[in-house]
């Protein structure tokens, strides 16, 4: 193949482009420099190359259209280090929430299990409007509990919900020990790996580090929150435990075992002080209950039909 054919081939096969490749290929496929008779192909290769170049943000290339989150747009991006998720505040007024997420995940850097890794933070400048962005680990193979809920409209078998509940409590316990309250334990924010029974809590935008009220609530789930959140009272681990128990009830729906319902109700009392305060202790209680209901723990295959 000639240099020209080589370049055209490369351009149409590429999903991303480096600085050096861009400069090199640009010279070769520039329509003015194209071999006689190849002006047409040169023009389309040049257009494609420009597209590749313009889809770059700093060191990242955007792949495809955004996924719409509650307050951010999420783009799959690729960099020299691999693929990741670029999460950009839709409204500059929410920049502080993205900054909170970055601050939380930086704290959690040492123990990344249960939390997505934070690779980078950016500020996008679009004609004077600045939007905060976090570059996060793309949790491949994970699905959200919102998707699980859609896949099991009649409710989840409590024995399947059990491992999710257990891991959710472990993850929350780890966050609480680090002095962080998640503040939005909702279906979209808990991801599971169906086959490996993994769990990751995402979207730390609503979190509270230390003590203080939760800064914002997700409008669609207003009813899921405990009373201290709209009352702007300080969030505590009990806030997360209320939300987590509510989420589990929601997933099991009509299939919930009455004993598990009572257990969850005991975590959802109106006064935070009357609820359990420690996720890991609550896990021990839950384990006792699960043992009484279902005997020794056994691994159950789980899948989420598309």
């Amino acid at each position, binding site marked *: 193949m000639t240099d020209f054919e080589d370049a055209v081939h490369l351009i149409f096969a590429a999903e991303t482009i480096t600085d050096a490749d861009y400069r090199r290929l640009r010279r070769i496929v520039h329509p003015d420099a194209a071999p006689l008779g190849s002006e047409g192909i040169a023009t389309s290769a040049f257009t494609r190359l420009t597209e590749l170049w313009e889809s770059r943000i*700093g060191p990242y290339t955007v792949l495809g259209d955004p996924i719409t989150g509650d307050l951010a*747009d999420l*783009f799959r991006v690729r960099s020299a280090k691999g693929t990741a998720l670029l999460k950009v505040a*839709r409204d500059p007024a929410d920049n502080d929430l993205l900054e909170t997420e970055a601050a939380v995940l930086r704290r959690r850097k040492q123990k990344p299990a249960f939390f997505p890794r934070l690779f980078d933070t950016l500020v996008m400048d679009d004609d004077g*409007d*600045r939007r905060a962005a976090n570059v996060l680990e793309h949790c491949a193979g994970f699905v959200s509990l919102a998707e699980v809920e859609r896949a099991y409209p009649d409710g989840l078998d409590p024995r399947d919900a059990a491992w999710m509940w257990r891991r959710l409590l472990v993850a929350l316990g780890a966050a609480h020990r680090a002095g962080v309250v998640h503040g939005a334990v909702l279906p979209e924010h808990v991801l599971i790996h169906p086959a490996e029974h993994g769990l990751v809590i995402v979207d730390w935008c609503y979190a509270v580090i230390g003590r*203080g009220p939760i800064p914002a609530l*997700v*409008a669609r789930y207003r009813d899921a929150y405990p009373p201290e959140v709209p009352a702007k009272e300080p969030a505590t681990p009990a806030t997360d435990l209320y939300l987590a128990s509510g989420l589990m009830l929601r997933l099991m729906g009509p299939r919930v075992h009455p004993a598990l319902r009572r257990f969850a109700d005991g975590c959802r009392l109106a006064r935070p002080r009357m609820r359990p305060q420690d996720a890991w202790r609550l896990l021990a209680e839950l384990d006792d209950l699960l043992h009484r209901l279902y005997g020794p723990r056994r691994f159950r295959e789980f899948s989420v039909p598309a």
Partner: protein
Amino acid sequence: MGSGRWSTDVYTAAENFRAATGRSAFAYSDSGARTVHPSLDPRGVTVRESRDSAEHPASTPIAVLFDVTGSMGGVPRVLQTKLPQLLGLLLRKGYCTDPQILFGAVGDATCDRVPLQIGQFESDNRMDDDLANIVLEGGGGGQKTESYELAMYFLARHTDTDAKRHGRKGYVFLIGDELPYRSVKAREVRDVIGDRISEDIRTETLVAELTRNYHVYYLLPAGTAYAGDRTVLKRWRDLLGENVLELDDLDAVCETIALTIGLNEDTTDLDAGLADLADLGSSAVRTVGKALTPYSRAVRRRGRPVRAALPRSRGGSGSVRL
């Protein structure tokens, strides 16, 4: 506020006039005034505003508040003579767009007559008038604590900026040598500012609220009672992280502030900024370099503004602010 144009000529003229008439730059204070000047009284103020205008389409609000209590020694007077240079320096070097500067002063609400003085965001000579009207307390409680948290409360709840609407933060520089109180007292907020709040607010909570809209810095200058004090530095670092700067030479205060803004806005880097200073004939190059080297590393770690026109999906935020 914030309209008008900085005129060096008028400033110089005012300066010359002061020199000729032998009036101190702190004329209000030195005339014996011991109460807050009406233009700087925080009581009953709804908001101090920083607005965009045809003249200033991309305003950058900057608040500079300094401790005026006795522990600061002669520092407040030096600041008063240096700070008028800040706006000109920012404009000349282009470190940020359309700066609008508010000057203010912090005292001790537990024992001072004038615990908080706060001007307007200005982009002309009026900021210099505000500086001249600041009362120097010279008191202070002698317990290594001043009411910085009261100032932060005011800035968090009583300022409104157009920059915020564009996702751009303003800047707050607190210059002092002591600790903030652990929380802002509801009673002091009522007495000094006039707001009725139901309970005291922890200083950490206020810092979190203030940093939503401002980059907040603490500058500890040499020549003050607690310069280099470990307890003071540690407390502020716990609150503000790398945004705590030690300043060896008070003469360099404007350069330090300007370059901090420039680094953060990504309009300059440390080497270029220091070269700028050397070009200006500044004697502050070394001290600014020393103060800002760790900070510039932190800025690089945090990431810089990237120009990008990403598609935005429709609809605003799906979250409700509490």
